[in-house]
C-alpha cells in the first residue's frame, strides 16, 4: 500500500508540491488529472526517486517502508515502475538487452538468480505479442527512432515484464493515435490485479474510457483539490479545470 502524507517537494528551489495526501491500496487504480503545471509529472518523478526532486516536508511510505532514503533503483526493486511520458533513448543498447539487464538487476537486488536466456526469450515473446512489439523492434536500440506509439508500447512491455506492484503511468496517452491508445490501454488493463496498485496521470478523459479508474483526483498548484469517482473525470471533460484553478486563486 502506498501512503503519501503532506508531501511537499521542490525542484531547484521551486516549490511544486504543496501538501499532497494520497493512499492507494493494492488493486486500486487512481487517476490524477489536472491542468499543465499543476505538479502531475513532478509527483511521478518524486515517487520514482529522481535526483534534484527534493522532499522538503511530509513522507512517502510503501508497504510500511519509508522511501525518502531509497534511490530510484531500490524503489524499482521494491516494486515501483514509472512509465515515462517521454521515454529516454539509449543508443547502441538493443531493446532486448535493456529488458534483460533491467530484469536481472531487479532479480539480483531481491536476491534471486538471473533468468536463463531461453526462459527470458520465451517470456519476452509472450509479452511482446499482445503489445504488437515486433522482433525487429526488440533488436533496435531502445527508443532510438521509435515512433510515439512504439515508445509507449515499449514502456508497457517493460512494465509487464518487470511485474511491478506499483505502476505510475505519466501521460501514457500523449502522442498516441486511437489504435495505439487501445493497444496500450489493453496492455495496462491486463496488468490490473488485486495485488497491484496503479496511478494513471493524464490530462484527458479519453484514456479513462479505456482504463477505468476507481478514484479520480484533481491536482492543482501542487495540491489535490478534489477527489471523486470515475464520473468526476466526465465532469472535468465537460467543464474544464477552470472551476478548480479559480477556486485556488480565490
Amino acid at each position, binding site marked *: 500500500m502506498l501512503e503519501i502524507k503532506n508531501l511537499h517537494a521542490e525542484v531547484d528551489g521551486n516549490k511544486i508540491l504543496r501538501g499532497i495526501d494520497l493512499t492507494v491500496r493494492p488493486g486500486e487504480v487512481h487517476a490524477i488529472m489536472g491542468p499543465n503545471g499543476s505538479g502531475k509529472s513532478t509527483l511521478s518523478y518524486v515517487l*520514482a*526517486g*529522481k*535526483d*534534484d526532486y527534493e522532499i522538503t516536508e511530509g513522507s512517502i511510505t510503501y508497504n510500511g517502508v519509508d522511501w525518502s532514503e531509497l*534511490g*530510484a*533503483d531500490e*524503489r*524499482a*526493486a521494491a516494486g*515501483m*515502475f*514509472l512509465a*515515462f511520458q517521454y*521515454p*529516454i*533513448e*539509449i*543508443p*547502441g*543498447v538493443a531493446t532486448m*538487452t*535493456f529488458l534483460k*539487464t*533491467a*530484469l536481472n*538487476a*531487479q532479480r539480483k*537486488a531481491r536476491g534471486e538468480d538471473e533468468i536463463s536466456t531461453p526462459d527470458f526469450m520465451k517470456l519476452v515473446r509472450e509479452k511482446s505479442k499482445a503489445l504488437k512489439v515486433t522482433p525487429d523492434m526488440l533488436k533496435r*536500440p531502445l527508443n532510438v527512432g521509435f515512433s510515439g506509439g512504439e515508445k509507449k508500447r515499449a514502456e508497457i512491455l*517493460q512494465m509487464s515484464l*518487470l511485474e511491478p506492484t506499483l505502476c505510475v503511468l505519466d501521460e501514457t496517452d500523449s502522442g498516441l493515435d486511437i489504435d495505439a491508445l487501445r493497444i496500450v490501454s489493453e496492455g495496462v488493463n491486463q496488468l490490473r490485479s488485486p495485488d497491484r496498485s496503479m496511478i494513471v496521470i493524464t490530462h484527458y478523459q479519453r484514456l479513462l474510457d479505456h482504463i477505468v479508474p476507481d478514484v479520480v483526483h484533481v491536482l492543482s498548484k501542487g495540491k489535490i483539490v478534489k477527489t471523486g469517482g470515475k464520473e468526476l473525470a466526465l465532469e472535468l471533460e465537460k467543464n474544464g479545470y477552470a472551476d478548480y484553478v479559480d477556486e485556488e486563486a480565490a
Partner: protein
Amino acid sequence: MAAVQETIDQVKAIDVDQYKYGFVTDIESELAPKGLNEDIVAFISAKKEEPEWMLNWRLEAYRRWKTMEEPTWARVEYPKIDFEDLHYYAAPKNTEGPKSLDEVDPELLETYKKLGIPLAEQEILAGVAPENRVAVDAVFDSVSVATTFKEELAKAGVIFCPISEAVREHPELVQKYLGSVVPVSDNFYATLNSAVFSDGSFVYVPPGVRCPMELSTYFRINEKNTGQFERTLIIADKGSYVSYLEGCTAPQRDENQLHAAVVELVALEDAEIKYSTVQNWYPGDSEGKGGIYNFVTKRGDCREKNSKISWTQVETGSAITWKYPSCILRGDNSQGEFYSIAISNGHQQIDSGTKMIHLGKNTASRIISKGISAGVSQNTYRGQVSAHRKASNARNFTQCDSLLIGDKCGAHTVPYIESKNSTAVFEHEATTSKISDDQMFYCQARGLDEEEAVALIVNGFVRDVIQQLPMEFAVEAQKLISISLEGSVG
C-alpha cells in the same frame, strides 16, 4: 564452442576488483644492469644468441637513438623519464628452452591462469573444432615462455614463434621484413625498441593459407623498473589470412613502468591481417601514482594490391598511452580499418588514434573511434588521413565520438586531413556527448544501480567497435569496460 564457453566462464568468474591483475609473481629473474649503452645492447643480443647482423642492426638503432629527442607534441604530461634508471632486460630464470608446457615454471602457469589463459588447458582442448582454438605465445617480461599449438600451425605452414627464435631459425624472413614498415629511425621510442627489443611474436602465413586458428599473445610486465620492449612482426603472404589477438596486463606497482613496443604488419597481394588488442596495463592508483607509460608504434603496410589490414583496439589501462596503429595503403585497391575504444579514468592520459596513408589507387579506409573519459582523465583522438598525388579515388570515412562522464575530464579530437589528389573523398564526423542525467535516471528507474547504468550506456556507445572483436575478446572487453569505469560516477 568449448574454448569460447570456457573463456566466457572465466571472464564471468573474474572478481570485480579495481585492478584485478595487480598481483606479483615471485620468480627469480635475471636482470641486465640498469642503464643503456652499447654493452647492454650487446648483452641483450648475446642473451638471445643472435647472429652478428642482428647485433649490428641493434647497434645502429642505438646510435641513432642517442641523437634523438623525446617527442613532446602529444597531449600528455609526465615527469621526464630517466632512461639510465631502467633495466633493459629481465628474464625469468629457468627458461632455458622449455620443450613443452610441463617444463614451464608452475608459478608462471599460475600467473597465466589468473590472467585467464590456462596454457596447459589450451593443448588439451585440441579435440574441439579448429576455428574455436586460440594459439598463445605468452611473453612474460621479455622472454617468450611457451608457444602452444605450434605443431598444428606448422602443419599449415604457419610460423608462429618468439621473434628471438625467428631471428635464429628464419633469418631470411626477418632480415627481409624487420624494420621495413617501421624503419629503425622512425621515432624516438621505435628506435629505442629497435636497439633493445627483447622478445615478441613472429608470424608468417604462407601464400594462400588461411591461418587455422586465432593467434594470441599475452604480454605481462612483472619485474620492477623494467621496460618492456616487445617487437612483433606479422607477414601475410599472397592470398593468406590471419587474425591476431594481443592482450596486455601488468602488476600493480608504485613506480611507473615503461613499455615501448613496435608492431609491424605486412600484407602482400590479396592478403588480410586482422589485429586486435585489449590493453589493460595498470593505470596507476587513485592519486595518479604508478602505472604504465605506454609508448607504442604500430603500423601495417598493405604492400601489394587488394590487401587489407584491420586494427581493433580496446584501451582501458596505462597511465599514459601514446599509440597510433596506422595503415599504409600502398597497393592498389587496398583497405585499411581502425576501430578503437579508448577509456580513460582516474588520472589516465590517452593520446591515441591512427594514420591512414593512401598511396595506391582506389584505396579505402575506415576509422571508428570511441573515446570515453571519466575521473580527471584526458583523452585525445589524433588522426591523420592523407592521399598521395597518385592515390586517385581514395576514400576515407572517419567517425570519432567522445563520451564524457562527470565534469572534470577532457575529450579532444585532433584530425589532420591532407589530400593531394582531387578525386579523393574524405569524410569526417565527430560528436562529443555526456551521459545525461535523464539516461541515468531512466536506467535506475528500471532497477539498474549507478554502475550498471553507466556500464550499459557505455557498452551501447561502443557497440560498433565491440562487434569487430573476435567473440572471446568481445566478452572480455565488455567486462573490462565495466571494471575500468567503476567509481567513475557519484
